[in-house]
């Protein structure tokens, strides 16, 4: 049962940018990861930390500069095109921007129908049924009302549901959703996360959810889910969600948690938010050896110049920090 559906082995990604292609940017740094069937994983981190890069590499929308990606135990770079095609639809991706991820001049029916037909998910005469089933699943009801609408008739939340429905149309086993709620109204966000949770439990699809809101991550991965904290292209903390939220070990995770607003005016006054040494994002190049957080970290020492590896705190918790044991005890409020 607990078979690996997706595995990353020492994956790095380097982008060349700038006028002369001279600037090399290390977007992902030696990331290894193993995802089991039916797992729920939330990946959190700030903007530009490499979350999307990671997600795209998982879905083979980007090729890693170093390292290998395995789907269902197969090394992607070794597959021939026929095998690849078969596997391709098993891994689907939900984009961040529901405005750009849906074709503006196709109606909802054809958006869902085409992939079903092309991949022969069902017989031609069953298509309508299947489409309605999908719409129902994602909560776009009454389905008849939506079939011939265009994406611009929908709200952001509606669009995101449609995008999820499209991803589900080909019966995937893995769904990667990249910040699916960031462009959606506050009042609708929770329901999208809820939808993903339901899909995970109902269809037993592994879901990897990328977020920058740690509250939403908690909501999603609470209980049996896992949490990955990523900073500067590196996994800095990894483990059971509850474990990390209650007892964060990495200084960055701690800052991240304490920075999230708490919806309680009185409590919030007592919240401890550390000042960082710098609020700039890390500048990482392929040569970078140091801990990515070093420039902002209040606890960094010379030892941090050589990057720490992922260390085991306990069975359910790993952290990448030389000094995690020396950090003060965690508390969020005074």
């Amino acid at each position, binding site marked *: 049962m607990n078979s690996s559906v997706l595995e990353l082995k020492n994956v790095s990604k380097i982008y060349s940018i700038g006028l002369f292609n001279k600037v090399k940017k290390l977007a992902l740094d030696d990331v290894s990861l193993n995802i089991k069937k039916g797992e729920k994983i939330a990946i959190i981190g700030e903007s530009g930390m490499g979350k999307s890069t990671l997600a795209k590499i998982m*879905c083979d*929308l980007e090729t890693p500069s170093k390292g290998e990606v395995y789907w269902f135990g197969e090394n992607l770079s070794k597959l021939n095109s026929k095998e690849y*095609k078969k596997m*391709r*639809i098993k*891994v*689907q*991706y939900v*984009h961040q*921007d529901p*405005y*750009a*991820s*849906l*074709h*503006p*001049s*196709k109606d909802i029916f054809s958006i869902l129908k*085409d*992939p079903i037909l*092309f*991949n022969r998910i069902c017989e031609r005469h069953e298509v309508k049924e299947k489409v309605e089933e999908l719409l129902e699943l994602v909560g776009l009801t009454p389905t008849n009302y939506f079939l011939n609408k265009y994406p*611009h008739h929908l709200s952001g939340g509606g669009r995101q549901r449609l*995008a999820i429905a*499209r*991803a589900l*149309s*080909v019966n995937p086993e893995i769904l990667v959703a990249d910040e699916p709620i960031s462009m959606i109204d506050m009042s609708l966000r929770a329901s999208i996360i809820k939808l993903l949770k339901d899909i995970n439990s109902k269809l037993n699809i592994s879901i990897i959810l990328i977020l920058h809101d740690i509250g939403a991550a908690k909501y999603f991965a609470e209980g049996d889910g896992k949490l990955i904290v990523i900073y500067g292209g590196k996994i800095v903390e990894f483990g059971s969600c509850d474990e990390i939220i209650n007892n964060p070990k990495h200084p960055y995770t701690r800052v991240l948690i304490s920075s999230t607003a708490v919806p309680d005016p009185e409590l919030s006054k007592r919240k401890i938010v550390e000042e960082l040494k710098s609020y700039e994002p890390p500048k990482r190049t392929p040569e970078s050896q140091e801990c990515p957080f070093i420039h902002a970290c209040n606890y960094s020492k010379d030892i941090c110049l050589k990057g720490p590896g992922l260390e085991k705190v306990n069975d359910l918790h790993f952290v990448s920090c030389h000094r995690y044991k020396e950090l003060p005890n965690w508390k969020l409020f005074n």
Partner: protein
Amino acid sequence: MSELRINLTKGISLFKYNKKAFIGFIIILFYVLMAIFGRYIVPLSLESNFSERYLAPSLKHPFGTDYFGIDIFAQIVNGARTVIGLSMTSSFFAVLIGTILGILRGYLTGKIGQLVDAIISIFLVIPSFPALLIMAAIFADSNLNMVQISLIVALWLWAPLAKQVSAQVMSIKSKEFIEASKMLNMPLYYIVFKDIFPLVAPYILVNFAMQLKGAMEFTIGLMFLGLAKFDSTHWGIMLNYALYQAGALYTPRAFHYPFFIILNIILLIYGGIIFAQGLEETFNPKLRGHE
């Protein structure tokens, strides 16, 4: 994101919103109708009558007569056929080539994409009019038909469009919904024709209207050069007679002669230009400003 909000459905209700496009369309339509039906309505007699040259506009001769004493109005109406025919087909081919190569260039990566890019670049850096002159000289004696002539003209018109289209396609290609299609194993033709093409179509339409101007100028040139069968009622040829052969500028009583020809040429091209402007404003709402 906003570039993508172009919506083909807008095209249908286009005229309701855009006066320019409407006027341009009417002008073009007018000339197209003239080209198709004009010669059945206005008979043409090319018999010269030197003593009746340069008659001023009158009821009998709405645009007056030319150096040969032939009615100018009749010639313009009958000549519309060649003028419009040649420029329309040339524009059509230019747009066809430009679109195909533009999409190819925009969509394909790797060696073939680079090859197409090189082809586009080459045609972009070679100045088109002189090149056309040379082509004209080469093919002058081959008795080309209208389609072949249009192709030769189109050969020197398509490159800028291809470049624009490829830029468009490149930006569309990196859009998330294309990525989604790829992930869903959608075949190439689906992505090109169902995903990309509907979104570049408005640009192509705009370009078609714009191409008219270039095609007009080129085909006029071609007649002089003998590439196209000589048609003395082609407006370009008429204008050439007026300005160079008959020296109408130097003859005060002949003012109407070049005037009406130029007027028609300008009106037709102007129609194309504002039609294109109108389309562009419609498809790219940012250009409209607040009105």
